[in-house]
């Protein structure tokens, strides 16, 4: 019987001919990413082991991105623990380079790899056809010590994309629409695979945005078919694929969805669930206090360009804080070179260094009681960006920037 991309990657990592959904396999992991969210806990557990050891240090990448620069004495202690450990053990270490998933995409991930990340949005790596999945620190520790872990082979949902997104509609609108359609647990324990002619119209930034958000439908991983766009991206970043897998013609999918990209509209996800999606027009006029353009989901140069084009020559509404946070230092420097940073600052935006910022609601841009944020971040859970009774609307860079200008939720076509 034929296999899906997810099944082929697991079979290769398990060293077996074939696998099927429901099987449990011990797999060899290619890469292990961890950030400053859980790593201090992993180190504590590691130090309590009777025979602590790292089986292959070249697999480990540690990235400080959640609280950068450090915002408190407690965080400083946690960062120091991580920094010192990484240095002592020769672990590849980034600090200030950007949000972990963007840094991983720019520097490490390649097609066909199996990657554990101690962060839920690790599924982003499917943009280049890698099986990335989020784990907690105990699973991470086990993988760090043994190089292996166990995986239940997931069923796969297939999304056949056709057509092309209309102008003013973005990959983020597509994935929010899909999450709205299948629900916040619609892909629970499953892989989400994307292919079809429509995929060819989506660039790497679009693909990362789509795969990154699949965990918000509960997915274990997301995977895109590898094509010329993938191979060009890898080549430009000095990497070759490990495996190029496509699903077999007779592969079994739990369900197949046909998605016409031209039918997708600008979307807003209302508080407090990512699957509470509506046509962006339905939210027009909603009061906001803060707007956030950034995150591993939507803080790449393509997103900043969308925002800059809208806001050029205009001003941020006087009652709104507009945070612009490039997803990586590389993105930041590109934006500087293109004059985009100047455009945002001229408009009155607050431009921050590359980090997770208010998307995870700890170190920057935290909002107060009853306040409203419109965000390109990953989640709109209750209280996530700060005060418990506060509200987050999720949208793409276009409505977020338009809203920052208007002082209330607006769509790009309302900015003249």
């Amino acid at each position: 019987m034929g296999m899906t991309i997810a099944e082929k990657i697991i079979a290769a990592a398990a060293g077996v001919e074939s696998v099927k959904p429901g099987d449990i396999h011990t797999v060899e992991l290619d890469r292990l990413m961890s950030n400053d969210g859980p790593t201090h806990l992993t180190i504590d557990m590691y130090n309590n082991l009777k025979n602590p050891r790292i089986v292959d240090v070249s697999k480990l990448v540690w990235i400080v991105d959640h609280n950068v620069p450090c915002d408190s004495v407690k965080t400083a202690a946690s960062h120091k623990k991580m920094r010192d450990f990484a240095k002592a053990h020769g672990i590849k270490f980034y600090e200030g380079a950007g949000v972990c998933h963007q840094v991983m995409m720019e520097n490490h991930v390649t097609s066909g790899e199996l990657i554990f990340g101690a962060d839920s949005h690790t599924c982003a790596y499917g943009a280049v056809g890698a099986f990335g999945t989020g784990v907690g620190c105990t699973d991470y520790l086990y993988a760090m010590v043994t190089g292996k872990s166990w995986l239940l082979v997931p069923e796969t949902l297939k999304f056949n994309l056709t057509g092309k997104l209309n102008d003013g509609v973005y990959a983020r609108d597509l994935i929010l629409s899909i999450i709205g359609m299948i629900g916040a647990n619609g892909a629970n324990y499953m892989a989400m695979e994307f292919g079809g002619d429509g995929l060819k119209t989506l660039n790497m930034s679009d693909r990362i945005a789509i795969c990154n958000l699949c965990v918000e439908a509960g997915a274990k991983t997301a995977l895109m078919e590898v094509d010329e766009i993938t191979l060009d991206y890898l080549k430009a970043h000095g990497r070759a694929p490990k495996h190029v897998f496509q699903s077999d013609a007779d592969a079994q999918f739990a369900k197949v969805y046909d998605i016409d990209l031209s039918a997708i509209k600008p979307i807003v996800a209302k508080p407090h669930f990512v699957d509470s999606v509506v046509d962006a027009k339905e939210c027009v006029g909603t009061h906001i206090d803060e707007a956030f353009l950034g995150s591993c989901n939507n803080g790449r140069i393509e997103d900043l360009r969308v925002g800059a084009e809208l806001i050029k020559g205009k001003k941020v509404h006087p009652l709104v804080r507009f945070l612009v946070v490039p997803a990586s230092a590389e993105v930041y420097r590109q934006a500087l070179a293109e004059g985009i940073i100047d455009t945002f600052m001229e408009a009155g935006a607050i431009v921050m260094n590359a980090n997770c910022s208010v998307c995870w609601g700890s170190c920057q841009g935290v909002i107060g009681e009853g306040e409203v944020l419109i965000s390109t971040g990953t989640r709109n859970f209750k209280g996530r960006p700060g005060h418990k009774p506060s509200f987050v609307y999720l949208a793409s860079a276009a409505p977020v920037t338009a809203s920052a200008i208007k002082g209330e939720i607006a769509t790009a076509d309302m900015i003249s």
Partner: protein
Amino acid sequence: MDKFTGKIWVLGDDIDTDIIIPTEYLALKTVQDMAPYAFSPLRPELAGQIKEGDIIVAGKNFGCGSSREQAPEIIKALGIKCVIAKSFARIFFRNSINNGLLLIENDKLQGDVKEGDEITVAINEFIECHGKQYPVTSLPQNLVDILNAGGLVKAMQRRNNLKV
């Protein structure tokens, strides 16, 4: 812990990890320090009311959201014996087993019970409430071993004959 009885707390669908433990409390030193803030965005008084041996009964997609392992650790630290939900998010599921927190999937129970009811759980056999039995899906033996050892690290130490 093959069979036990406890008082239940009933929660709804999509109880996410930011509800279980909001980001602002993750900087606290230990899970015991964090535990009083568990579920605070939803029910600030709940953590103080939960007693050792209580059980949570919830709807679908319990534990969705981030990979923060403090989420199951805190539920365990509150004394919760097990969580029964219509479904669990996958990262939370792994994290719970790895920390020795028992999870049971059942899609009928939540609709039949009210907060404060007592239920009996026989692991891998059934749940009983108001004299009615609900079948449960069996966990594979290796996961039961991890649960019984109190988590993955302890299970590995036990397997390798290391003193825990």
